[in-house]
């Protein structure tokens, strides 16, 4: 424990956690964590995925009951396992995935559940007045008449915060709040948070991004493997030391070597795709990825990246336009893509990447099941299949107790290594011609993240054309040779990474590219 004065209670403490321990079977998610939160401060809870941040907050909010330890809120003990009591004690939570009803107005969403059901008329006018007062006081401008479906992501987040404040929250917990925001929206959020703390609120800010933790917080608590490993002032802390505390060891991030790209491998020409309701998913996409280069697609989630990924993994057919791999058009069939040496890493590893209930070895061959290597006369060649799985597990360092365990039981990082290994092992010692990496490091810890980056860079070095779709701008700048930004189904010019600034990307993510060009 470094730099901590955990034993002495802070006088203005609003929330005190003492010795919180929570076990799930053999796993200790929280190990005697003691923390206190002062009035008017932003406390960052920093840690990798699986470090125990979410568990700790769930205990605080009454979703879980701690095995040991107590919580004191505003001087009185908080009854365990009772979300209603947490709310009543003034603890408000803003989840990463918003809990808003799209078809209702902002006011309805804020009021929902605050009025007794038996009351015959809803006191909307009084409620609207209170919402407006709260919004004005904390500088959270929103139109209470608007439907949530019409709001941007940043505005929705403001509604979530208002919702908590309306319920009388004096302690606000924000779970990875910037994950869905553009860089500009994040800056706005940080300004809002500063305003909230000057009004006397206290904030717990959960994140694994070092920059924003340093930018917004007063104190930083670092969790690792369920233990509180450091609690320190943000002032004077550096990224390097926080990273070391968070991971527990130095991580060397792979770096990119420039090389001349080869021939065009993937060519997308004028592709249009609509969803079942006629909404535009892809609106005239042109894209080239050459052998040996990494092209990254940035953008706020939901701007057509999913459709682009479907298009380039053989699960979605273009309505208009063409997609060719090495000059040949490919049918929208995953098996055709796999046969053409396309390696596909899907965004959602749990529900698309693997079949959780099947064994690891079965998942390792699932893309190639019907190829003669693994099926003969309708029977699965188990020996060959298991050998293939063992080879992937060895080469990609997948940590598991055996290839017969269900894939569901793997940790996120190991699951991703399995998917990566399956995709990149194209058979016959060959290398993939094309790699689609859709959010390949989402939710991974730094060690696994560095490994994934290394694999992608290595594959590109061996001549694979890599398309990286990511919402993480750090990742994009670390890997990409060229960068394009998606907005509302269109793709900006795909330009060399050096020619983009962070603010230019942020502007393009918010749809401002055209406006910027016109001005």
């Amino acid at each position: 424990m470094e730099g901590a004065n955990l034993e002495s209670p802070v006088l203005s403490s609003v929330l005190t956690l003492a010795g919180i321990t929570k076990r799930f079977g053999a796993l200790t998610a929280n190990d005697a964590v003691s923390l206190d939160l002062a009035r008017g401060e932003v406390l960052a809870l920093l840690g990798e995925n699986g470090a125990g941040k979410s568990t700790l907050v769930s205990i605080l909010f009454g979703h879980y009951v701690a095995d040991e330890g107590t919580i004191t809120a505003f001087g009185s003990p908080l009854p365990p396992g009772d979300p209603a009591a947490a709310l009543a004690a003034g603890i408000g939570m803003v989840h990463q995935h918003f809990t808003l009803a799209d078809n209702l107005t902002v006011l309805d969403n804020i009021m929902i559940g605050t009025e007794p059901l038996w009351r015959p008329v809803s006191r909307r006018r009084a409620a609207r007045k209170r919402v407006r007062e709260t919004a004005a006081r904390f500088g959270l401008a929103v139109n209470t008449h608007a439907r949530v479906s019409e709001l941007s992501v940043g505005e929705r987040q403001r509604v979530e915060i208002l919702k908590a404040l309306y319920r009388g929250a004096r302690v606000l917990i924000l779970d990875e709040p910037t994950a869905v925001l553009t860089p500009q929206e994040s800056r706005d959020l940080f300004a809002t948070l500063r305003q909230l703390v000057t009004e006397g609120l206290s904030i717990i800010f959960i994140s694994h991004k070092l920059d924003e933790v340093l930018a917004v917080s007063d104190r930083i608590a670092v969790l690792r493997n369920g233990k509180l490993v450091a609690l320190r002032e943000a002032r004077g802390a550096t990224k390097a030391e926080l990273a070391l505390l968070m991971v527990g060891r130095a991580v060397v991030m792979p770096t990119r070597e420039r090389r001349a790209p080869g021939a065009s491998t993937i060519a997308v020409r004028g592709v249009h795709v609509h969803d079942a309701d006629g909404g535009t998913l892809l609106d005239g996409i042109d894209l080239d990825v050459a052998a040996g280069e990494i092209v990254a697609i940035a953008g706020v989630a939901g701007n057509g990246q999913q459709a682009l990924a479907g298009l380039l993994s053989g699960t979605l057919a273009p309505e208009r336009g063409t997609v060719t791999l090495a000059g040949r058009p490919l049918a929208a069939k995953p098996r055709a893509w796999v046969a053409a040496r396309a390696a596909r890493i899907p965004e959602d590893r749990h529900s698309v990447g693997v079949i959780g209930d099947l064994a690891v070895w079965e998942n390792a061959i699932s893309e190639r099941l019907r190829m003669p290597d693994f099926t003969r006369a309708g029977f699965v060649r188990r020996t060959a299949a298991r050998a293939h799985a063992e080879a992937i597990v060895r080469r990609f360092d997948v940590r598991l107790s055996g290839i017969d365990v269900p894939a569901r039981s793997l940790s996120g990082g190991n699951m991703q290594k399995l998917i990566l290994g399956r995709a990149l092992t194209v058979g016959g010692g060959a290398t993939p011609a094309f790699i689609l990496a859709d959010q390949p490091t989402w939710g991974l810890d730094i060690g696994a993240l560095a490994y994934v980056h290394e694999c992608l860079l290595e594959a590109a070095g061996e001549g694979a054309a890599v398309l990286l779709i990511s919402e993480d701008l750090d990742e994009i700048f670390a890997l990409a040779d060229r960068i394009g930004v998606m907005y509302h189904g269109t793709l900006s010019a795909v330009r060399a990474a050096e020619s983009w600034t962070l603010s230019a990307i942020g502007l393009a993510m918010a749809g401002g590219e055209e406006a910027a060009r016109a001005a």
Partner: protein
Amino acid sequence: MRLEARGQVSRSMQIAAPFAAIAFTLVVCSLLVAWAGVPVGGAYLLLLEGAAGSGFAVSETLTRATPLMLTGLAVAVAFRAKLYNIGAEGQLYMGALAAVAVGNAGLPLPPIVLFPLIALAAMAAGALLLIGPALLKTRFHIDEVVTTLLLNFIALLFVSMMLDGPMKDPGALGWPQSVAIPSELELPKLAERSRIHSGLLIALCLAALVWMIDRFTAFGFEMRAVGANARAAAFAGMPVQAVVVKTALLSGALAGLAGCIEVAGRAGYVTLDMSPGYGYSGIVIAMLAQLNPIGVVAAAIFVAGILVGADSMSRAIAVPTYIADVIVAASLIAMLVATMLARYRIRWH
């Protein structure tokens, strides 16, 4: 009270779960037996004797278990691929009808050829009845629970129409009953002075076959993958819709074959009360067996034993045979709870 996942489900707990469920069921049902005013221990003893107390009792239980194994397999195969086939009852009747129709078509063939032919006809009839719901499900996302359930009534009314019309046995004194299957097509008996027939061996072989398909073939792999996670299976390149349709063909064929074997092995002709809900019991059996083909055999024998034993018990003492339905139903619920408890532990606070 809430549930927490256990880290790893132990093998012993998985095996103990069904036995715990049965023990719990018998304890609960003993209250009902006691309510009927008879000694509980004696009643259960009579039930056990009726189900397995003599060679004849065993043969009766196995005779009853034969169609249950096939409908249980039909349901287990479909449910594993998340195709909820509730229509095994209708498929069984259509299979029985097709078997009798082809058997009486007067084809000049020896029985050794004709019997496989009527079995195929029965399987095709059962499969055809399920292919519609399967296509509606894959093409238009129409819930197969509703379509297969309602098709049972259509199938039964169709059978009724045939039994009162073109396939009516003129010698049956006006009863709605089909003409009998030719005697050379009847399945041989396995024992003297009993009703047990070689259909049991066919059912056992099919259970082994289904187990092998499930475990060793690429199609079995695809069925499991589609059932476990259709999105991931589609991403991996498996033809999800084709797999669902093929699964439907297999499931319907098994249920249709149950009808053929019931006619050729026991009943001899089709009547409207030929099946006391074998198709629906198949669902219970498949669930009791946790959709495992080998487990289906054990579950079918268990359910058949309860049904046969309760019949015999009710003849001896004043407990209605409906106790059998209660025991089977309660054991299913207990089984579902037991398997859940094997995977999760309850936390009270």
